[in-house]
């Protein structure tokens, strides 16, 4: 029993060292990754890259450098305010006369990070009155949830409003909703231009649009192609009022849902993995700029307003494991553990390989050292087999742990 007790302590120590030692290492040696921001010029129909630094530099794909003012002139959709101030705003772009209000109305930006998807989601939402006739939205007194039916709970009394609950439940039931809901997404704040309710996925992966108009439920079922399932929906509040949301499917495809006839349009973007890529979708009068970025590369795909791919740009940089500090890490530590992950809000045991094989040499060295120590102590080898295995597998973590809890047992 004492041996088991020691084993448990050794395992716990390995766990802790696998968390603490890498944390200290990165705190000491981590360097920031200089990421670039990629813009698309509607004038040149080419990319411009802003490289970070003090000051930031701007260059095109061929590496020609541009002063800041030139760069801003090349990207008028992005920098129209500055160009207006400096008087450099062109009157026409691509043969189209420029109307400031039109530019503003057609600008939108949405960012979806992995931690927006992999996080605890609320299960209660405020159902706003979409057409209250008032200039600003008001927070209702109740919140709804969708379990075996729709239930509205009064926040003040914590009691169910039966009538309203039955009303909405019946409406959803009428449209073939399979309870309970698996995903409810919307914009649950009064700080939006108007309320478009919620997009809700039921237990059969069907998609519904639900809102409240003059106290009555509005439900619309969105036709989905066979087998299409969504894992994330990001509802939007854009000035052009053309779209309800961006949606991410289980296969990591990106869709946009139009307000007009609930058309689901798939973006011709590949290489996006919601688990570890950040997605940025910037839209202006002429194009969509879809940027997919992870820790090693950025892909920028430019679409026209018919959602067709125009051109794309790819840039990659060395991963942490390929940089000097990463290589040294790879030769010291076999793996690292962390309770946190930048791609998720959840706290869990996140295991990450060290990204190299150099640690094998250190592990073998430590095994040899441990062997030597055992010989010096004239210890029986048999009782230390598990310890040697720990050192072989967990390297420096194992070595420190087995010495922290001395393996000294008597018969």
């Amino acid at each position, binding site marked *: 029993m004492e041996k088991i007790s020691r084993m448990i*302590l050794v395992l716990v120590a390995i766990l802790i060292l696998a968390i603490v030692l890498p944390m200290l290492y990165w705190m000491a040696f981590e360097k920031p990754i200089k990421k670039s921001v990629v813009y698309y010029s509607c004038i040149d129909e080419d990319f411009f890259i802003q490289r970070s630094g003090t000051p930031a530099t701007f260059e095109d794909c061929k590496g020609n450098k541009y002063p800041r003012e030139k760069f801003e002139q090349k990207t008028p959709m992005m920098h129209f305010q500055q160009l207006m101030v400096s008087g450099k705003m062109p009157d026409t772009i691509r043969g189209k006369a420029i109307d400031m209000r039109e530019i503003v109305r057609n600008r939108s930006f949405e960012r979806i990070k992995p931690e927006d998807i992999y996080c605890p989601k609320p299960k*209660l939402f405020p159902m706003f009155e979409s057409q209250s006739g008032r200039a600003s939205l008001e*927070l209702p007194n109740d919140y709804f949830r969708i379990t075996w039916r729709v239930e509205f709970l009064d926040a003040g009394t914590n009691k169910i409003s039966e009538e309203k609950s039955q009303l909405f439940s019946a409406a959803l039931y009428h449209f073939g909703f399979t309870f309970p809901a698996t995903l409810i997404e919307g914009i649950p704040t009064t700080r939006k231009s108007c309320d478009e309710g919620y997009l809700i996925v039921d237990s059969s992966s069907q998609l519904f649009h639900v809102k409240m108009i003059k106290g009555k439920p509005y439900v619309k079922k969105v036709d989905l192609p066979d087998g299409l399932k969504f894992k994330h929906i990001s509802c939007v509040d854009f000035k052009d009022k053309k779209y309800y949301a961006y949606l991410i499917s289980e296969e990591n495809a990106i869709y946009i849902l139009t307000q007009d006839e609930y058309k689901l349009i798939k973006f011709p973007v590949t290489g996006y993995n919601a688990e570890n890529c950040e997605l940025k979708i910037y839209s202006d009068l002429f194009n969509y700029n879809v940027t997919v970025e992870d820790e090693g590369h950025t892909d920028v795909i430019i679409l026209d307003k018919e959602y067709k791919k125009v051109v794309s740009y790819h840039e990659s940089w060395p991963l942490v494991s390929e940089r000097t500090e990463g290589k040294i890490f790879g030769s010291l530590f076999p793996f690292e553990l962390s309770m946190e992950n930048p791609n998720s809000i959840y706290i869990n045991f996140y295991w990450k390989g060290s990204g190299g094989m150099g640690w094998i040499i250190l592990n073998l060295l430590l095994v040899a050292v441990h062997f030597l120590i055992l010989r010096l102590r004239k210890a029986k080898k048999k009782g230390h087999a598990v310890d040697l295995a720990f050192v072989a597998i967990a390297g420096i973590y194992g070595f420190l742990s087995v010495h922290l809890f001395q393996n000294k047992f008597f018969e």
Partner: protein
Amino acid sequence: MWKSIVFKEWLKIRWFLIAFTLFGIVVNGYLFLKVQHGFTFQGGTSFWYNILFMRYHYFDYFRYFPLLEGLVIALAQYFPETVHKRIKLTFHLPLKENNVLLMMQAFGTSCLLFSYLLLLLVFISLGSLYFPSEMVYDAIVSVIPWFLAGFVAYFFVALIVLEPSWLYRFLYSLIAGFFVNVYLKSSLISAYGPAIPVLSLLTILMSIALLFPAYRFRKGEM
């Protein structure tokens, strides 16, 4: 024989256990008094909104309470055993040494469990007055790691107190500090969900950890 063990352990921890349980109930009461106040002044709608969408953590006060309780109960139970090496008396009792320790540990753990369950019950009951089951459930998921931290603190203090060497006591304390931290990270409500099974397993495994330093003591390690 176990009745005598229970009797002895109870004598050591009874006042601390009762005091902490009562104090815990008071803390819970204070927590929900604040909630009540919030409901009165902001309104229930706003209060729910802050919790659901503004990441307001209305029970964060409670985070270190189970840890403190576990620590104190462990000290109350095991410290008297090591003063003047009284643990020698315990080991001399006509039982297997490991069994005696495990009985002591089991009793302390059971008392702690009872106290925690009571506090959890109070927390859930009061919470259910103000919040729907989803929000109470999320809150429970958030507090479970804190209660597990309490048990871990209890198990670690037991093994640190029983360890005969001061150097190792210090090193074990460092490990304990980091390990307990794993259970108490700042987080959003119910973010700990996926980690709870492994954390629970680790906590249960730690319950027999004290046998190792006790063995070292019995072999005369310094």
